[in-house]
């Protein structure tokens, strides 16, 4: 018995010595392929988009490889453009705030509802939610465009049938109704992730805590905000970060709507503006500068969240 123990102890210490050295090299060997891909395809392009933004970079420059540096002229032009302040920035930031708040609030509400259901209805409802989630952004957008189509869409038909509307209305020309449809589309597409994630967290909250609180006379709202929310702090942090990242990057949902690809200037957001300037007007330098501004905006906002999550993790 004792002999056996010393033997295992020996075998345990021997590989450990060589493993110590391997442990410093091995993680880098494992990381190397992924880091190479990220460096070449994400980090280097990020440096390049910044370099492009300092140039008058058009079709000629792309084909000949010539460089014409113009310093911060692109940025000056963007910042001096009244369109940026009255249209593009409000569309981008306002929409992102509304859609993050809307998606997280609605998704959380759905999660609470699901948690209170029996197994059968919970399965039915969450399968339906999966169906909404699975709808690709491109097809989802076309379906919403079809529903709200001016001449033959079902939305106008129903409103006129109910006598709420006299003539078919084109909901895509007005900036507010345009973005209301985008918001509907984005919430419909985005709430399932929030609901499913928060539901998983909710089911993990110790029941004893909730029961104890209920016995102490805490109402449903009180129980939600005093017990569930603090328990799910990390889940909410993740859900909010990811929703922010996804909602700021909304592109297809705007670009594919009627007028969304640049012909209706009042619905431009930073992403679409950058794309149509680059690939529509061949002003790649100018478009790059817009893209850099969008990136900085996103980084600034999300850096705050990321620090919160990492701080939590290191504890």
């Amino acid at each position: 018995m004792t002999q056996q123990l010393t033997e295992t102890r020996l075998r345990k210490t021997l590989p450990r010595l060589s493993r110590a050295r391997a442990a410093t090299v091995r993680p880098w060997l494992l990381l190397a392929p992924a880091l190479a891909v990220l460096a070449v395809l994400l980090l280097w392009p990020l440096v390049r988009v910044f370099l492009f933004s300092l140039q008058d970079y058009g079709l000629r420059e792309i084909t000949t490889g010539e460089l014409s540096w113009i310093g911060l002229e692109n940025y000056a032009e963007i910042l001096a453009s009244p369109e940026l302040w009255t249209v593009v920035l409000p569309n981008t930031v306002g929409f992102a705030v509304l859609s993050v708040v809307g998606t997280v609030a609605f998704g959380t509400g759905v999660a609470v509802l699901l948690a209170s259901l029996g197994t059968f209805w919970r399965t039915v409802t969450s399968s339906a939610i999966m169906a909404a989630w699975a709808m690709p952004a491109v097809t989802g957008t076309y379906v919403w465009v079809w529903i709200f189509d001016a001449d033959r869409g079902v939305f106008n038909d129903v409103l006129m049938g109910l006598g709420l509307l006299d003539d078919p209305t084109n909901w895509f020309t007005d900036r507010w109704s345009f973005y209301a449809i985008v918001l509907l589309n984005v919430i419909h597409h985005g709430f399932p992730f929030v609901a499913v994630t928060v539901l998983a967290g909710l089911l993990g909250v110790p029941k004893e805590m909730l029961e104890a609180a209920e016995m102490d006379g805490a109402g449903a709202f009180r129980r939600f905000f005093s017990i569930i929310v603090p328990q799910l702090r990390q889940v909410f942090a993740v859900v909010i970060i990811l929703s922010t990242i996804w909602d700021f990057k909304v592109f297809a949902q705007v670009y594919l709507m009627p007028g969304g690809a640049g012909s209706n200037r009042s619905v431009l957001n930073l992403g679409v503006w950058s794309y149509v300037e680059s690939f529509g007007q061949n002003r790649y330098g100018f478009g790059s500068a817009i893209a850099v501004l969008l990136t900085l905006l996103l980084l600034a906002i999300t850096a705050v969240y990321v620090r919160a999550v990492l701080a939590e993790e290191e504890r």
Partner: protein
Amino acid sequence: MSGNRPLRRTARRSPLRQLGKGVLVALLLVFTLFPVYWMLNSSLDAQAGNTSSFWPAEPTLDHYVFVLTEGGFGTFLRNSLLVALGTVVVSSVLALLASVAVARFRFKMRTQILMMVLIVQMVPLEALVIPLFVQVRDLQLLNTLIGLVVVYVALALPFGIWMLRGFVAAVPVELEEAAYLDGASWGRMFWSVLLPLVAPGLVATSIFSFITAWNEFIFAMTMLGGATESYTVAIGLHSFFGIHSNDWGAIMAASTIITVPVMIFFILVQRRLASGLTAGAVKA
């Protein structure tokens, strides 16, 4: 599921409460499923676009036949399948290796690398599409599916690493120690212990990469602009809409064809996908 029985026993079960809950569930189902239903309904109706009917007024499969033959969606589906599978294979292997490194080893720069993996996910595609367009053009890979796979691997990789590292971290270190005690090498331990236990996470990550590649639009539009025969489904639908913008029955049939594979996928693996997202995102 059995864990929440005590809670339900204490919950008040007044009929009014049950009714309210039923109404909420019904509203939720309508909101969630109506667009899906409307897409199917229009795709099956020969009268789609002429009258708004809540069920197919004149049921037909003609829209599907048209879309798959003249619409070119047979080719687009094949292209998307190739691109998505290529992306899944390459990005899963790279993400698995990297996630083992960040989940199992403490080394200098570990936190910085994790931070970078998080931050690159924030970069908007609009910022990457200009330089990557130039880069892929210089490599003469414009209008090729390989060029697209290369880009999609990069897009799917950060999230894959982030997600898989939670699954790797969840494997008890004691199991690895036991493998070493039995004299296994690190490589042997990786194949026989770690890999089988991380398999569910790998499935979740693969599905996520597959869907990323299947749905991606902006790069497909930019890089495949000139070559219809290399279109993926997303850009195929965009160009189809440009040509047949009034044929809503056909547009919805094409949309259904694109959506259904993804939807079946999602429903089949829903529990795994949800646990995958939270595991990768929440666990340290």
